[in-house]
């Protein structure tokens, strides 16, 4: 997909997101002796999505740890490791199962720097596959990003393609604060992109403009990106398409300058509408650029229900649903 950032002299291969993430983890383990991975089934099994495949064999049990079944323990111990000099990367098997660790994330990781006056910090990365599209039903499909975006002290990142996935995970490893790294599992193997060998980073806090246009701004992230691009390309829409990549802190400047240009906004995400990330985007815009708008700010999102198994294709925003609201905005 995005090849603009191709670096001089770096060999490119077509990789899927699982391979790209695996490569990023390999680089981290290889270059940072204090880095390590921990999670359920990440070692021998290589992770249920195979993101950590082969790494136990390469780096040993001390640095690729198959943990007992307890997310609180995974995150809680990782925070302790991080505060005392290691660089742990924890995997939560599905984001749906992160909630037993919620207290550790919200009350410990996110507040440790603040309450200790900077004497302690917790550079821990918590990776979690999220979102629907794999027929996972209520408990293997959730998009819980809002719970983290509302929590100051965290970074919340989500890539939408293999290239970004690798560079973003490498960038996350350089942050000295806790990171929730959400991986859109629907895109794990469905798309390939050119991925350079070796190290490179994607800037944290910066959105990417994937299409440039004048009539409307479509803001999205993660698994909805390919769907949005399809809508735009198939319908020849004159649209700015923004992939947020960083959900906390969001790239305010890019959002606002695009909206000032186009005057129309549609926000697309999988998570339920009420207090989904779209709510914050909308609020930021109507605080700062309301007089530039020609139309209401529309949100196209998952429903305010748990995530259903049988009808997931109707739950997830699809091209029709997005197009309907793009048209509504354009015709307003």
């Amino acid at each position: 997909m995005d090849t603009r950032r191709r670096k001089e002299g770096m060999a490119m291969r077509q990789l899927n997101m699982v391979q790209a993430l695996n490569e990023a983890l390999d680089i981290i383990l290889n270059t940072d002796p204090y880095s390590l991975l921990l999670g359920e089934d990440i070692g021998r099994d290589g992770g249920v999505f195979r993101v950590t495949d082969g790494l136990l064999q390469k780096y040993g049990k001390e640095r690729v740890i198959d943990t007992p079944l307890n997310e609180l323990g995974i995150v809680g111990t990782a925070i302790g490791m991080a505060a005392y000099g290691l660089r742990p990367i924890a995997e939560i098997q599905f984001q749906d199962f992160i909630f037993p660790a919620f207290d550790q994330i919200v009350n410990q990781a996110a507040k440790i720097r603040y309450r200790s006056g900077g004497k302690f910090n917790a550079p821990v990365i918590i990776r979690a596959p999220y979102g629907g599209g794999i027929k996972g039903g209520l408990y293997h499909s959730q998009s819980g990003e809002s719970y983290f975006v509302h929590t100051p002290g965290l970074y919340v990142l989500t890539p939408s393609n293999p290239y970004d996935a690798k560079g973003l995970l490498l960038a996350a490893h350089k942050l000295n604060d806790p990171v929730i790294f959400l991986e859109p599992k629907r895109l794990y193997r469905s798309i390939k992109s050119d991925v350079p060998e070796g190290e490179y980073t994607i800037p944290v806090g910066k959105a990417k403009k994937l299409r440039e246009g004048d009539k409307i701004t479509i803001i999205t992230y993660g698994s909805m990106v390919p769907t949005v691009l399809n809508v735009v390309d198939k319908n020849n829409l004159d649209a700015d398409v923004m992939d947020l990549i960083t959900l906390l802190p969001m790239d305010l400047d890019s959002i606002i300058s695009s909206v000032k240009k186009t005057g129309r906004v549609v926000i697309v995400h999988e998570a339920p509408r009420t207090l989904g990330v779209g709510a914050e985007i909308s609020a930021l815009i109507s605080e700062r650029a309301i007089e530039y708008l020609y139309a209401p700010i529309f949100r196209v999102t998952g429903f305010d229900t748990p995530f259903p198994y049988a009808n997931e294709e109707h739950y997830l925003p699809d091209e029709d649903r997005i197009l309907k609201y793009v048209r509504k905005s354009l015709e307003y």
Partner: protein
Amino acid sequence: MGSNGGGTLKFLNRFDENELLNAYRVAVYSRTLDDRIINAQRQGIIGFHTPSAGHEIPQVAMGMLLEKDDIVINYYRDLTLLLFRGVPVENLLDHFLANSEDFSHGRNMPDHYNFREYGFYSVQSPVAMHLPFAVGAAYAKVMKKENGIVLSNTGDGGTSTGDFHAALNFASVWKMPIMFVIENNGYAISLPTSEQTKAPIEKKGEAYGIPGISFDGNDIFSALEGFIKAFEYVRTQRSPILVEARIYRMGPHSTSDDPKKYRKDEIVPGSSDDPLVKFKEKLKSLGILNEEFDNEIKKWATEDIERKLEERMKIPPPSKETIIYDVYENPTWIQEEERREWL
């Protein structure tokens, strides 16, 4: 084991040969169904399955000792127990197929059963999250002066969760009539029990003042013996107990799992170590069963399942409006609006 006169054999002073034979029949039916579902998953008819091969023996044993008023708060690997307690296979198939006759309009992944009418709770995915719930259910039973006890089971992995810790402590402090059953099949997906914990699972109750009991769950008589003691304890003491049934997960964790990545199979289905084969041999040696009858049972099971699967596959999928039902007793304006706009 032995005769108690009157011409009828009584095993463990309790079960006659028909009961044993019935247990065997349910176990065979369960295994047959399990295999068929795995197959259906490969054929793309069904989306997912967590096989229960290897779990049949303790589950029929529980089934034989449960009483009508007992509530079971179970997990996703309890196909045999559901069958034992009378859940019609049609309902199970509707659930696996996630069709419009499914109790929840196909909202759940397969194996997330919900058969309240048959004394079960509704199965969720987060491991062991139902254990504190079970304690609350027991509390309701006691407060409402209802008969019966609560049985709640989960896997060896489940013992590591905070839910397990909370549930056992609350059950003990409140002195609830509840049986916690750990179906220790040796693995939590790829993690062997020896890396899940460094303590014998039956000892885990001691941290809460709850007695523990452990037995070979691959053998029907040792399973029955163990469960008889455990049920007796809970029913008479009206206090919690922790039961460990030592078994072996013969298949993959789920249809998405490939155990070759992390283990060599120790017990191969159909081999002489297969607990179902051992059950058969036991019944044969007791003169309750012969090969011919066994073949008949298996043939009946296969045909019955095949016929019903074919029939249930004709049922249409749930309508998309069902997405917004049952979020609340009455939908709020948010769900209503979403339905109007999209469904």
